Every structure is written in structure tokens, then in C-alpha cells.
């Protein structure tokens, strides 16, 4: 089953009188439980693609389906109508429940501890975290091997630890899609390898679809499918079957 379908996606950015087409009729299909890596040069539009996948920005043209549901168009997103407000809420719920983000710079909020950063997404739909979510947070911390750090301020963690916290936060609502933007960009080789392994574990053990953009070919090797983004279009670099594909 396709979890993500992008069809002829075009995205342009205007800078004064200059218009730059970053994505130009891009098409991508991602199956549920897949692990996809997108590589490309700096400025190729990897992050833009990831933001479109994460519904943070809208494409100028093209169609985007998540689990066969179309994403709302911009007029609806801006909440100009009553229905628009509903769509906005729906989109937020979708982002909250189905998508998790991991960024290169982790984007952990310094005012909160590790524990609070992880539970933060649970507050998007209710006023306090539930016991079940707290247990899940503990499990995730344990899974990532950073349970002893749960009360620590995030500013005191190493880069690798911060990435793990960011992954935990991305997974707290058990999303079906995990989007990672250069997750190993600030890590040394050993830590980068560890983080890539963690993504693989998330993909295989938690059955989460992972889409990772990276400029590192080495990191991209961990994915089952690797695409290269060039001139606004994706081209397949390799594809390998996993146990999941066979079964």
C-alpha cells in the first residue's frame, strides 16, 4: 500500500524578480514501511521536498496523497472558510499523528527537559500527556538508551544524545511516517552510524516508514531505496528488497 504519493509536484521560490523552480514535476511513491533516502547536492531542494512531505509547505502544482487522502489546497489551508478551518485542524492532526520530524540541528526546545521535549507533541491535541504516552516515552528513551537522561536539560546533551531525543520526540505519537532532514549532519562518523542504525531499527521494529534526506551517500546506503534529487526531479539510484518486501 502506498503511504505517500507525489505526482508532478512543482515548487518555485521567488526572490525579488528572480524565480527559482526547486521542484519541477517531481513524482514519488513510497510504500508503507519503506525506508527511503533522498540524496542531492546542497540547494537541490531536499529540504523543500521534505517540508512538502511533512505538509509544512504546499506545492505550487501537483498532487499529494497521504494514505490515499489528498492534502488540502492552499485556500482551504489558510482557513478562509469554515471548512478551511476544519481542514486546517485535519492537517494539524495528520501532521501530529502520522508524521514525525527529525532535523539536522535537532530543534529541541531549550526551556524543556529531555522528558518534556519528548512529550511535547502529545500536547497538540490535549492539555496533558496521558499515562500511556508517558510509558511510551519511557520505552522510547529505553529503546534509544538514554533513559537516565530524561530529567536533563537538553542543552547539556551531546549531539548524538540530542538526535536520539529528537527521534524519541518524533516517534512519541507513533507516526506512520518519519521524516529526517540530514539527521547525521552534525555528528561524527561513529555517532552517525549509530543514528542510522537507530533509523533502521525504527523502520524494522516499529514498522515506521522513514524518509531521510542526506547528502551523504554512505548514510543513504542504509535505506532500501535511494533517490537522487537533481534539477527538481528524482531519479532512482538503487533499490533493495527487504524481508518486509518479501513477506
Amino acid at each position, binding site marked *: 500500500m502506498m503511504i505517500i504519493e507525489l505526482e508532478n509536484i512543482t515548487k518555485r521560490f521567488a526572490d525579488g524578480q528572480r524565480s527559482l523552480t526547486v521542484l519541477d514535476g517531481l513524482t514519488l511513491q513510497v510504500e508503507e514501511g519503506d525506508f527511503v533516502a533522498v540524496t542531492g547536492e546542497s540547494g537541490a531542494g531536499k529540504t523543500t521536498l521534505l517540508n512538502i512531505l511533512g505538509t509544512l509547505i504546499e506545492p505550487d502544482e501537483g498532487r499529494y496523497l497521504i494514505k490515499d487522502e489528498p492534502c488540502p489546497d492552499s485556500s482551504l489551508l489558510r482557513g478562509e472558510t469554515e471548512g478551511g478551518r476544519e481542514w486546517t485542524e485535519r492537517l494539524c492532526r495528520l501532521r501530529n499523528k502520522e508524521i514525525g520530524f527529525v532535523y539536522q540541528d535537532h530543534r529541541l526546545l*531549550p526551556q524543556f527537559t529531555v522528558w*518534556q521535549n519528548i512529550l511535547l507533541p502529545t500536547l497538540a491535541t490535549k492539555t*496533558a500527556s496521558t499515562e500511556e504516552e508517558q510509558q511510551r516515552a519511557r520505552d522510547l528513551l529505553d529503546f534509544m538508551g538514554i533513559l537516565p537522561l530524561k530529567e536533563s536539560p537538553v*542543552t547539556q546533551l551531546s549531539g548524538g544524545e540530542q538526535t536520539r531525543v529528537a527521534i524519541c520526540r518524533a516517534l512519541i505519537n507513533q507516526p506512520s511516517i518519519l521524516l529526517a532532514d540530514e539527521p547525521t549532519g552534525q555528528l561524527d562518523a561513529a555517532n552517525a552510524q549509530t543514528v542510522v542504525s537507530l533509523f533502521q531499527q525504527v523502520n524494522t521494529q516499529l514498522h515506521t516508514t522513514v524518509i531521510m534526506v542526506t547528502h551523504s551517500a554512505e548514510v543513504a546506503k542504509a535505506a532500501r531505496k535511494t533517490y537522487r534529487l537533481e534539477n527538481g526531479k528524482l531519479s532512482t539510484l538503487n533499490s533493495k528488497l527487504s524481508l518486509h518486501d518479501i513477506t
Partner: protein
Amino acid sequence: MTSHSQKYYRRFYRLVVLAVILMIAVLTGSLLLGDSVRGTLVQRVGERLGKTETVITSGTGFMDEALLDQPLLNHARGYLLMNGYVSVGEKLLPVYVWGTDADTLQAGEALVNEPLGSKLSSLNSQLILHLPSHNMVPSGSLFVTKSYATQMRLHVVGVKSVEDGGNMLLRNEQTLPLNVFVNRRHLAETMELEGKINLVLSDDMISDGQFAAVWNPELSGIHITDSSLTYDRVFLPHTVVDKLTPPYPSRGKGKYVQTYFAYLVNEISTLNSQLSTINYPFVTAVSEWQGEPLDGQEMILSDYAAKRLHVLEGDSVSMSYFITENLKNLDTREQTFVVKRIVPLASFRNDSLLVADFPGLTHVEKCTDWDSDLPIDMNRIEKEDEDYWYAYRQTPKALVSYEAVAGDWSNAFGCATAMRFTSRPDVSLLPGDAEVQLVHPRAQGLQGATGGVDFAGLFLSLGFFIILSSVLLMKNPLVEMFNLRSGELQLYRQLGFGDRRIKRMLFREVFGIIFLASPLGVIAGLVYSGLTLWLLGNVWSGATHTEGFSLHIRPLTLLAGWLVGLLVCTFVLWRVIRLRVNGSGFKMSDVRCKMEDGRAHLRFGVNGSGSGSKLPLYSSFFIFLLTLGLIVFNFVSLHSIALFVICGLLWILTWGLFLRNSLQKIQNTPLFSRHLLTRLSIRAFSRQHLLAYWTLALGVFAVFAVGLNRPDFSHADQASGGYQYYVDSRVPIHYNLNNPEVRKKLSLQSLPDSTVFLSFLRHTQDEASCLNLNQVSTPTVLGVDLKEMASFGLNSQQSPLSLGEGLGERLSIYIDEEALLWSLKKSVGDTLFYQNDRGETVPVVIAGTYPTGISHGNAIMPVEDFLQLWPKEVGMEVLLMKSSRPDEAAELLSIAMSEYGLTIQTTEERIRMFFEVTETYLIIFLTLGGLGLLLGIFSLMIIVRKNLTAQADTIRQYHAMGFSGRLIRQLMLRENLLVPLYAVLAGATGSVISISANVRGAGLNTLLLALVVLAAICLLLYYGIKIMINQSINNPE
């Protein structure tokens, strides 16, 4: 590099420039205001005194115009100065009437000064001037005509300019007087005071000694010959009699001094069965008659009287006469005398010292023409009486022992009508003995003008909040700019720049802007002071009751304002740079280590959150309990306004400490909630939030404490003592208006029975009310029975008098709180010095205070003390009236006593006039405070904006995590609005505490207005912050 940075960060520098201009403008402007008010008051002293250096007054008496012929007074002008009133429309305007020779005024012509001219409907019109009857005999004595006032019909021929002395005034006031200038001789003729003056203004400084050398008693109407002494004012003053009497025996064949007292008695009648009576005879008290001493109850009768009474020597007769103690409350006293001798009437007739010249009594053709205050029953006057009057006028019919009647017949003005001595006494009388006093008004005036209300200090305190807000307005953009440039600072360090060098660079960059902006601040200060002076003379004239102030610019003041402003700005800049540069590095003091699960966890302080000590929590609880305790204590016993204000400030401090603690003591729990999220986010910017708290809480406190303190006239009972009308009489009233007989006499019998008057004696000195900006040394004194003042909050049984009880023989006064504090700048227990009727300086102790009310600006003195100081001022000049039908009573009073020149106004109107001053100052404070509060809110918005900029990443994160826009707005709004609202609440409740003493005084309208303003501030904050949040959410980059 500096100029590039200045240009690049110009959006921050614009705010810095604005703050610098505002701060220096308020500082310089306030100092200029002080100079201008002081300068104007000094100018007024010059205007009202002209070239006058010495003032010679004759008190209630008069001086002969021949005094002006003395060479010492070559540069002097003589005046006959009277208090009068003119009717303009339906209003009575009290005026000073200057009888002068200086202007070429003809009889019947008048000049008016500019303030009076502006009140008259047209110049070149007729002016009817009402003058209290001022004849030679003191009006407070019994034997005066019952005409209370005279009129002068005048033609106004022009306006006397300020330069020509049009605004002449001897009292230390900045309020311009209403002056009428008339021909002195015409005035004297009208008042039957030909050849008399009562005021001399000299351009020379004349000392008491110099004046005493040229003065002689004759000039004051005291006629001394080798054998006698008489006085134009009939009654010889006690001082004169005392001075001449002691060294000489009052009788005997050698050197002697005899004192005579002529009196109109009610009757002399026989005691035998054949009752014979002589009605209303003149009788003279003597100690000796032609070598015959009169002792005890002895009397010498004229043969005429003996014949009418059918008595012989040795017989007893009864004599009755009126006496009065106060307010002409007449009492009849009777004494029995033994006829010691019967002498020919001619011997009485030939002795002029036995008679006195009572106007209204002695210069009439018939007894029935007598015009006197005495209740003479004309029906009792017989034909023989008229015949006697025709032949002998006031020649006494009998002489009685002086010893027997002197006590009864003496009054405040004297104890004799003539003295006789064998040779001229070797005692010299001084000017003071005839009430003549010398005053040097310029020094007093300048002292009052320069020591008066300090407008510089006043406006600095009124504009304090603007200065405070300007500091914040300057600090916040600088902090935001340096935060934005933290990378730049790090780079400088990496490039090897030392901290001092970096600080110097930043200082140079910002100080350049400040320095360039500062002259603009001085110019703005000139505009600010000019505008404020204009407002004080127009819109805010209620605060000063003047015709406006002129701007006095002193370069030194401009320099001082500029330097102080620059200094404050430099200090703020230095603090900000020091904090930012020192704070941009890693400080070990921010790191704390905690062992947990066998490994060390480093914890960093978040944005200056304090240590984990519980001291602040305990201290906030302690201050909270202390505040509550003080509030309760103050409510129960002290009722101190100052303490309530301190309690209000402590309340704000407590709330601030609670806020600080609540931010520091956030417990990390497994449960993570939006509530905790909000608190943690607030803590992340705790320094900024606390700064916002103090700014807003203090701003709201200042504005509300002042605003809620506005007086409400629906609770003016204590201020007016329950009296509804205030009556000021230009002519002293010598009657007790509560007496039914007096009411009948004055045609006031129709007054409702419930009408009650409270009368005050008045010794006019300086106006010490808030209407006078000059410093006052001796306020006008009102004499009253202190028991009557209980309803005004002056309780003679309370503590103020307990001090009075310990005063021994010293005299005491009570002054209202505001006059004591602002006009006199004295406190309870201090001594004031008044001159009594004899010209002696007498210490008077301030024994207590009473709440400011209807008698504001006057000192209250027990009537006994008053009469001891000024026994001649026995007429009531101030009345308070209450009645079940007050308006009707007031109208009747104004008609029946129209000759007295009564100014009648409701007590509420009068109190409102005083409170208008306070009210206007409050409005000024509210205006400036409100402006400061707006600036405070504006600088708060900069803080919020800075927080939101710093939270741009957080907002993006919330987006990415699926937080809806509405939820993000909610969270941001909570984070940024909670503390400001908390601050507004703390400030508002603190202000309510601060006005607890007067909480009932704040009327419903004031409370409603306060609620509206409170709501407006909250809405302003809500929408201001909301708009900025929306901008941040829509443009997170």
C-alpha cells in the same frame, strides 16, 4: 565601522533616540518649570510691590497725613486702604480700595487694575463701591453708629497698568488682586476720615529706629498736652494707659495721673420710695475730682441731677448700664453708689476731659436722633433730657469712682477716654503703642516666592514614570540589538578583541547616537516646559489659580538637565553593555552539578533563574504577612495615608516575589501539560517577564493610586462639618446670629428655626491654602470655640490637644494637614510667630492638625487665645450656616445683611475650589503617568517582540509537531500575556490598598472609570500582544 553599524541597526536606534529625547525633555523641562514658576513668583513680588521697600501700617487705626511731610518719607506715598466690594452682575467682588494722591484722580473718578477691568462689563462705566463703615471709633466697641457700610458712586476712567502699580498687593500671594484706585481725599471725606491715612509705602529702607525718631503720638491721633491726653479713636489703648500710669500716683497733691472714662449709662435712679430716674445720662468715671478722691462706690452728682433725683449728699442711688463681653451680647449691670458730693453742673461743663466724642451720639441735635448700636428706648427720653441735651450736650450728670466701673466699661480698644496729669509724663510713646508698624515686604515676598512650592521637584515626581519608561524604552531595544548581535560579539572575541575593547566599541557606537540626540531632548524640554506652563495658565489653571506663568530660561538649568539626562542614558548604556558583553560568554556560575543514577548531570540556570535557596520564598511569605499585618494595623489604629501607600507597594513587591518564586520552583513531574509548558516557557524568559512585571505593576499602581484618590464631593460632610453655606463678610459682624433677639434686630427673624451659624473671628495674614504658591510663614487665623470643631475632625479631646495641654502658657493653633505640609512646610510642635495688637511678637505653637476641609488655608485658634492676641478683632468675618432650608436661609441672609458685603457660597462649592487644585495636580499626574504607562506598555511590547523573535524556532517546532495555529497562538498568548495581566492586577490591587484611608472617598463614578481604564489597559495589552503573535506565527522567519 561604527557608522555602518549605526545605519544597519537604525530600527533600534530610532527607539533609543526617542527614549533619550523623552528622558532629557522631562528632566530639563521639569527643571525649567521650577525656574519659571519661581521666576514668575519673584516677578509678581516686583509687580505687586513696585519700588516699595518699607510699608508703614496703622493697624485698625489711622495716621495723620502730616506724617508724609517728614523728610524721612520724601520717597513715600500715603494711602487710605480699605477693603470693599463691588457688584458685578449678581456677584459681589471683594476689592482693595486704594485712596491715593499719586494719580491725577478727581473726586468721583476711579482707576481699576487689569484683572478687575476684565471682570467689569465695560470700562468708562459707573462703579458702585461698597465700603465698610470705618470711622474713628472702633466698630467693635459699643458706642458706634449702626451704619455698617457706605457707598461711593464712581466713574471708571481707565485701567492702571501693572507697570504703574495696578496690581499692588501687600499679601504674599501670586493671585492677582482686584484693585480700585480713588482720590484719597474723596475717600476720606466719604469715610469721615479727613486728613487720615492708614498706609505709607516708601521706596527707601526705613528702620524702626529711624521711623520712631520722626514719629510722634500726634501723628496717630494721640493728643498729649502738658496736662492731658486724649485720642481721636476715643478709647485710650491699654498700652498707652499702662505706660503712663505706673510711675505716677493716680491722686494726691503732688504729681499725679488721672484716668477718665466717659460712658452712656442706662439710668440713674433713687433707691427711696419716691422713685426718680434719669434715663440715658452720660456719666464719667474718675479717680479724683478737683482734689476729692472717689473710692469704692462713691459718686459726685451735678446739682442738676441731684435736683432731678431729689437726693442729697449721703443718699444712695442706683446706676445701671450695658456691658458686653463678646459679640455685643449685651448684659445690664447695676451698681449702687453713695452720693459723696453734689457740685454745680458748670464745673463739669467746663472740663472737656469729662466728655468723649462718640459719633452718632454726640453730634446730633436731639437725643432721639442718637444713632447707636445700643438698644436705646427712645420712649424713655423725656423733655428734660432733650432740654439738657440742647443746653449741655454730653456733659456728664454724674461722676463715679473709676475703680468701681473700669472693669465693666473697658473694652478691647481701651480702658479710658482721657488722662489728666500735673505735668507731661517723662515717658515716650512708640509707634507700636498706636498700632503703627513697619514691615519690609520685599524680603518676605522674595523669601516666600523662592521658598514656595517646588515645581521642579513636583514635575520631576509627576513625570517620574515617563523617565522610568524612557529608561526601559532605551534599554529594551539595546538589549534586543545586542542579543541579535551575539554572534558578532563572539566573532570579535574569536578575532582576539578583548572584552574591554568590545565594550568600548559598542559604547562608542551607541553613545554617539545618544550624544547627538541629547540636544534634541533639551529643545523638547523647552517645548515641554512651555506647553506645561501654557496648560497651567489655561487648561490646568485650577492647580495654581494664576493668570499664567512666563517661561524663565536659565542656561545653567538647561545644562543641568542635559547633563543629568546624558548621565542617566550613559549609565543605562553602560549597564546594558556590561551585562551583554559579560553575559555572552560561558559562565561556570550558571552550571550546577547533580549526581543521579551514578552519573553527573550538569544543570544550567535558565536565563538567570535564581538559586535553589528557599530564602526568597520565605521572604515573600514574610513580606506578604507583614503587608497584611500592616494593612490591618493601619485600618484599626493609625489610618496613615503614607503607610497605606507603603502597604500598596509592599503588596506589589510580594506579588513580584511570588512570581519570581513560582518561576524558579517549577517541579518536573512525569505528567507534562500545557500549563507546565506555559510556565516553563515563561521561566525561559524570566528576566524579561520580571522586568515587564515591575514596569507594569508600578505604572498601574502609580496611575490608579492617584486616579482612585480623586476626591468625591458626595462625602464632604467632615470637610464641611455638616454646614451647607460658607459666608465671608467684608464688614465684621458683631452679633451672635444664633440669638433670636439679634435675628430680630437684623431682620433675620424669618430664618428657619433650624438655622445654625458657626462664627469665626479672623486675623487676616497670608493665604496658606493650596491656591497660594508662595511659602507662608503666618497663615490667617480663625478664632473659634474648639468644641464646635469636632464635626470637622478636630477633636479637642484627642491627641493633638494633649500636646496643647503641655504647652503651659503658650498659645496654640491647629492647621489643616495640607496647608501644614505644603504651604508652611512645618510640623506639629513647631512654633509660628505672630504680632499681637500691641505689635509684640508672640510665639504660637502648632498643637495639631485637622483634615483639610472648609477652613483650608487658615489656622484654627481657640477663641480665648485669639482674643488674647488680637482683642480688637472681635467681629466675626467668617460664618458657616446649616439649615433645614439652606437655600432660603442663604437668600434671606444676603438680603437682610446686604450692607455687610457678604460673599455667600455653598460649602461644597468652596471645598470643590480647594479640591480642584488637588484634582488638577492629580489630572496632571494622571496625564503624565498615563503617558508613562503607555510608554511602559510600548517598551513591554518590545520585550514581547524580542521573546517572540527568540521563540521563532519554537513556533516552527510547534507547527511541525502538528500544533494548530490557534493552539500556538493560545500558547504564545498565555506565555506573553499572563505576566502583564498579573502585573496589572497586582498594580491595581496595590493601588486599592494605597487608597484604603480614603476608599470611601472614591465615588462610584471614579471606581467605574478605574474599571474602564483597567479594562482598556488589559485590552490594549491583549490586542497588542496578539497582533505581534499573529505576525510572528504568519512570518516565523
